[in-house]
């Protein structure tokens, strides 16, 4: 495995890389004997202090990637390397101990907290499990973290999750994830379930936390505008594969993959504009992951599809500085 060619866009050998995901695949067995490949050969890395955005629509596998990185459960094949250590080479016990380095924030704020426990207990739980601190030290750390996420410790300590709002619960969730001072925070749709006016609060909080605690982040979401604003680099996924990966500010200017272009065109912008012109929307539906199209998976909906696209699956190839596209006919940049 270490000898297999690494994809061009991995910055290997760079000591700054916190997370390196190589040829990650995840296959699910369905009742009835069928197998679904939710994630196929995904590779990327994240440097220290960097945020990588992972964007895609339903069924693209982005949530599965997040869970596979956490080894909850481990991927079907491929390697996850955290700060130089491949996770697959760890014993079950050392894997459990290494969990403090990677933490996750989930989509539904209410269901990510145990309804029967108090906020104080919930945020302290990772410390208790790690077993490294005594009670007084734990209380201090929990208090500090609750303040860091904008909650008043005295007010919320003894409350239960159902007494807090969605935004407050998400803050608690973030506090819990950060209390062990992880190196990498995986955010899986952290604002999708929140009200619009609360989303901005939480996004600002995540940015602040990243600066304050020196985090690297993997930000998974379906809302392109949200992800783009928060990320340094963006990877777009479709049906289990990465189609395009580039610095975020490049996307607005040059979306090379037809799917990325379609995503950008579909995002509704709250600016004065003439009435929509019918017919520009991307046609068709996402094919079933049980039976993906041959060759390029996007070809059934791609306006630029040609014969080669059905025969040969494109791999990620460099297009410009730090810009990689998996397409036989990438869209050229219009200057």
């Amino acid at each position: 495995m270490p000898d297999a060619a690494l994809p061009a866009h991995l910055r290997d050998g760079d000591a700054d890389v916190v997370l390196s995901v190589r040829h990650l695949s995840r296959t699910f067995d369905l009742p009835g004997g069928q197998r679904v490949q939710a994630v196929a050969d995904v590779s990327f890395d994240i440097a220290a202090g960097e945020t990588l955005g992972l964007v895609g629509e339903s069924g693209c596998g982005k949530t599965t990637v997040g869970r596979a990185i956490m080894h909850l459960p481990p991927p079907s094949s491929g390697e996850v390397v955290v700060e130089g250590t491949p996770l697959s080479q760890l014993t079950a016990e050392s894997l459990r101990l290494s969990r403090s380095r990677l933490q996750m924030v989930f989509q539904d704020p209410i269901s990510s907290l145990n309804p029967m426990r108090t906020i104080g207990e919930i945020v302290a739980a990772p410390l208790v499990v790690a077993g490294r601190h005594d009670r007084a030290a734990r209380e201090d750390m929990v208090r500090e973290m609750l303040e860091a996420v904008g909650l008043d410790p005295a007010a919320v300590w003894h409350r239960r999750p159902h007494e807090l709002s969605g935004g407050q619960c998400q803050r608690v969730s973030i506090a819990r994830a950060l209390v062990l001072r992880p190196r990498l925070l995986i955010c899986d749709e952290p604002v999708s379930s929140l009200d619009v006016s609360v989303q901005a609060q939480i996004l600002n909080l995540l940015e602040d936390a990243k600066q304050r605690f020196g985090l690297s982040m993997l930000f998974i979401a379906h809302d392109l505008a949200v992800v783009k604003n928060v990320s340094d680099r963006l990877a777009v996924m479709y049906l289990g594969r990465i189609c395009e990966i580039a610095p975020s500010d490049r996307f607005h200017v040059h979306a090379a993959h037809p799917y990325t272009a379609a995503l950008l065109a579909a995002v509704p912008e709250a600016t004065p504009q003439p009435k929509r012109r019918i017919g520009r929307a991307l046609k068709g539906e996402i094919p079933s992951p049980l039976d993906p199209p041959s060759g390029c998976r996007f070809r059934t909906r791609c306006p630029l599809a040609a014969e080669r696209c059905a025969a040969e699956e494109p791999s990620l190839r460099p297009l410009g500085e730090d810009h990689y596209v998996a397409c036989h006919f990438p869209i050229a940049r219009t200057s």
Partner: protein
Amino acid sequence: MTAPVPLLSIRDLRSYLRTPQGLVRAVDGVSLDLAPGQTLGLVGESGCGKSVLARSILGLVPDSLMVKAGGEIRFEGRDLRHLQEHEMRSVRGRQIAMIFQDPMTSLNPVKRVGGQIEQALRLHLRFTARQARERAVELLGSVGIPSPRQRAENYPHEMSGGMRQRVMIAIALACDPKVLIADEPTTALDVTVQAQILDLLQEQQEKRGMALILITHNLGVVAGMADEVAVMYAGRIVEHGATGDLLAAPRMPYTAALLRSVPRIADPVHSRLEAIGGRPPILVDPPAGCRFAPRCTRADEVCRREPPEKRDAGTGRRFVCWHPLEAADA
């Protein structure tokens, strides 16, 4: 220029609901007009009362929940609130149709989708079984479902979210209604599917000359679709105007704050979003003055004490605020 006679005219509508937490003033004095063929966007966050408003128009709020209702809803001259139930039934689905957010729960899971469309046709238009079947297939095709004759035999769970939403639109359009109320029709859908569905709604609306009330929390969705936008907060309309005008120069601070708190693709990376502090109000005990005052950066004593009056800025532009933003500010 004389204004067109409104198709739907709502005046001071009130719906107060009974909940375990107390009396909720979900709709607290809403007035709106809808002209034939016009698209009105109704924008607000969750809990602002927009869904209750939609259901109140069609009398779909259960009596057990409704404590007090007030105001009038004039549709083609008749006040819907004073209709008998059997008269109202002939309005629902036939003159005014509605589609909802989650097509999975809005469609009957144990009935084939073709059958659900036929049901509407036979009920309102007295089609025979064969006529209804043919028309149902036709409708499925017109909403962009490929192989409609086969698809008519599918159950809802055999279809994707986008397809199900198309089926719901087909059911709503079956009797050629004059008004379509779409309550968050694309919120549960992927963004590319959302674009398809919005295209479909626009296309059908233009083809049939139908009026559309598009309810959503996403200002971007109404931007390219609506002629006018009404922004709702805590049971009241706080700003109303032509879409382009309102988006370019909002007068009410809530609208402006809402526009600034949403990230845009064109923004530079890592731009700080202007969050609105606090959280949406719980309508059990609304504050005395302006309902947005607790979260407003421009609020003062007057705002907290007195509910602001409606201001008219001409050409259909209305807002409710003591200290509106100047047209030049935004």
